[in-house]
């Protein structure tokens, strides 16, 4: 989480918000948040609601914790990137920030100023395809 905290301004400059979720309660999480000076929300999913909704409940450990994962979600609620650490190597914060910057350049701020859209949709599909190969998307793209 310290890595993400270090890059928070970069994410926000790219038009992105950060949120991190674990099953730890507030009593355990808040002191860590303060100690590290984290300025984005640390969600305490003690009910495993979000963890289950995203299919990430690891029932083999400590009564059920989250499998590490990261999702980039756009304003249309669409998943634009995902990294599942159980099936792929860990994604770096720098990689995520780079992706968010590309997304931000393409369509995150349509009201700000008109931009050329020619390049970015192409990059998105290329990247989505590469990720499908890398991470093994099992549900057909609809």
């Amino acid at each position, binding site marked *: 989480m310290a890595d993400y905290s270090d890059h928070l301004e970069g994410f926000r400059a790219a038009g*992105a918000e950060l949120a991190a979720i*674990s099953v730890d309660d507030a009593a355990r*999480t808040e002191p860590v948040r303060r100690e590290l000076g984290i300025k984005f*929300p*640390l969600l305490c999913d003690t009910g495993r609601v979000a963890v289950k909704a995203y299919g990430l409940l690891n029932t083999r450990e400590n009564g059920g914790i989250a499998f590490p994962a990261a999702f980039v979600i*756009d304003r249309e609620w669409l998943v634009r990137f995902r990294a*599942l650490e159980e099936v792929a190597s860990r994604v770096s914060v720098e990689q995520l920030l780079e992706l968010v910057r590309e997304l931000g350049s393409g369509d995150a701020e349509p009201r700000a100023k008109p931009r050329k859209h020619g390049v970015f949709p192409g990059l998105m599909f290329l990247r989505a395809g590469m*990720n499908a190969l890398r991470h093994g*998307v099992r549900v057909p793209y609809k």
Partner: protein
Amino acid sequence: MDERHTPAIGERAPDFAVADSTGAIRRLDDLIKGGICVVVFYRGHW
């Protein structure tokens, strides 16, 4: 892990409403209002 329930690229992300460590309820709906939201799941602090 149950990948059948894990949203893939191009699929709609499930909403959630979960309290953060300060007690404030955070919904995905609110988090994506700025444009993009990066949601990270982590193991926890133990």
